[in-house]
């Protein structure tokens, strides 16, 4: 088909506008991710590679540190994401009540943590949870504990601190999404439900939650991706310790590449574990969300 000059200039312009982004993404995203795939089949230290076939995958299955990092990451995911999203949903619902006194204050207060820099808040948490720190002091005064807890040196409590820290930082962020979505729900739906005698909890569960499903899906995917890549907080709070109790996959990749004698090929293999996990989990979340809609 002969193309007119107008059609041609449209087509050229269309590409010109997206080209800078595509070129940059090609160089700094597509190329690295493919390179990383190739590298995940290479063995060797430093800059000396040789093809290792499935050697790296074999190594994964027998690497206790990797398995530890994997199970830690999954634990953080399974604990932290649901807690955070439920809290966010609860706060959003409470703050959506226009008769609530001081809702502006509460909203701003709960949102405030996500304005902080990751590094700053990690450091602050580190000082709060120091052995003689304010957390222990307070709990001792309240007689909730007998002896100070060694927060960051005890495997269990270190994980608790990490989960607490992430939840602190991101709950308000998710809450804002829910709040915005709730404000788009037609008020009269709730009024109709009240006239029909539907109790408050049922209004929340059978009206609010289903209508919020797309947003809940969005936040859960975003949070899943974020938690699977968890790095900043653990590196600053615990550096993965004590004895790898808070080591995450991202931190392990970093350690493999930049802290120990670099083992780029193996690190690339570990990084593909995250890619695959993100893919699988996103897919599951989409399927679950679709199922319920039908």
């Amino acid at each position, binding site marked *: *088909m002969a*193309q*007119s*000059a*107008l*059609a041609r200039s*449209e087509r050229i312009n269309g590409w010109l506008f997206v080209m800078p982004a595509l070129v940059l993404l090609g160089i700094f995203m597509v190329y690295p991710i493919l390179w990383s795939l190739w590298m995940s089949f290479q063995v060797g230290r430093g800059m000396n590679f040789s093809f290792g076939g499935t050697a790296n995958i074999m190594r994964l299955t027998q690497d206790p540190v990797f398995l530890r990092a994997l199970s830690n990451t999954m634990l953080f995911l399974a604990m932290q994401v649901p807690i955070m999203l439920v809290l966010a949903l609860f706060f959003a619902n409470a703050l959506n009540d226009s008769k609530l006194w001081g809702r502006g204050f509460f909203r701003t207060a709960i949102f405030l943590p996500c304005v902080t820099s990751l590094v700053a808040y990690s450091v602050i948490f580190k000082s709060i949870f120091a052995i003689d720190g304010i957390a222990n002091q307070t709990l001792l005064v309240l007689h909730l504990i007998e002896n100070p807890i060694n927060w960051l040196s005890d495997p269990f409590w270190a994980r608790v601190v990490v989960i607490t820290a992430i939840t602190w930082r991101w709950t308000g962020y998710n809450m804002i999404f829910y709040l915005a979505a709730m404000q788009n729900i037609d008020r009269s739906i709730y009024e109709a439900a009240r006239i029909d005698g539907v109790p408050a909890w049922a209004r929340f569960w059978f009206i609010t939650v289903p209508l919020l499903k797309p947003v809940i899906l969005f936040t859960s995917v975003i949070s899943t991706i974020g938690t699977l890549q968890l790095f900043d907080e653990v590196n600053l709070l615990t550096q993965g310790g004590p004895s790898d109790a808070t080591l995450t996959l991202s931190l392990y990749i970093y350690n493999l590449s930049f802290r120990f004698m670099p083992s780029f090929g193996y690190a690339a293999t570990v990084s593909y574990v995250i890619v695959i996990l993100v893919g699988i989990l996103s897919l599951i979340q989409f399927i679950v969300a679709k199922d319920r809609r039908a």
Partner: protein
Amino acid sequence: MSSLKLRAVRKSYGNVEVIKGVNLDIKDKEFVVFVGPSGCGKSTLLRMIAGLEPITGGDLEIGGQRMNDVDPSKRGIAMVFQSYALYPHMTVRENMGFALRFARVPKEQIAKQVNAAARILALDPLLDRYPKELSGGQRQRVAIGRAIVRQPEVFLFDEPLSNLDAELRVHMRIEIARLHKELQTTIIYVTHDQVEAMTLAQTIVVLRDGIIEQVGRPLDLYDDPANQFVAGFIGSPKMNFMATSVVASGKGSVTLELTHQGKTAITLPLTGPLPAIGDKVTLGVRPEHFELAGSGIADIALDIDVAEHLGATSYIYANTASGEQIIVEREESRHELEQSGLSVAIPATKAYLFDAAGQRLR
């Protein structure tokens, strides 16, 4: 010189053809209205003339020059959009002068042209306002003003009144008609509203599914529609269509039996080719053309459903015995309509016949 010539103009998106070969001549200073139901391609055709949509096939000439590949701003056209498309971040003055700024027209000249256009449309007091500070009608006038400033040879209007309320629409309609008189330029105007088409146009182009159904002066289309589609589209309320079949044919006339009217037979003169006996043909009568019972060629009995009294006239929505809906317009003895039955006569001269394909039988 700003006549337009369209020759076998086509437009397709992938495999979907939306304009299927349009041939049209528009004379200089003519007011042409493209009318048709939504999706008929009238806006696409206008955008092709404007240069906003590439032309897939055929030729477009404006003022004797082929314009298929010419940039929109160099076609000598100006366009008024349905949503007005005023630049929200500029004042009325800046909006109106924007095109000239990019045509490198000197500042004093721009100011002069903007002021002149503003005077024509009484926009002077609004020049320093922003679009969001204007009412719908004012925005519409600014959009027209922006087109005038460029002193185009051809004005293109894309459903310009559809975002206005009924009263304002009538007002702007008159203003546009006045403007055409004043500016003496070619205008191509797209609308789906046949009333706008009838009142504004010198020539109406009726489009359906990407082809031209009929081109003509407004009254010609009303009095002498070429096919059932045009007959139904032009005129309000719509022309009534009744199913009939041919029972006798010959000697310059046909005799029909109204299918849903208990075999009432009517005979109509025809000058053209005659349909065969047994053919299904459609009889069309406009609501305003029914006559009092007994005075036409045949009477039909109707059950009145609803009567709408508009004051000067009344529309009676009625059903035939078998449920065909018929609209009758009445100006006399309307109080008698309170009763449920009504008998009207099919007029001898103003009944139209269409064959099974919808083409007019003359």
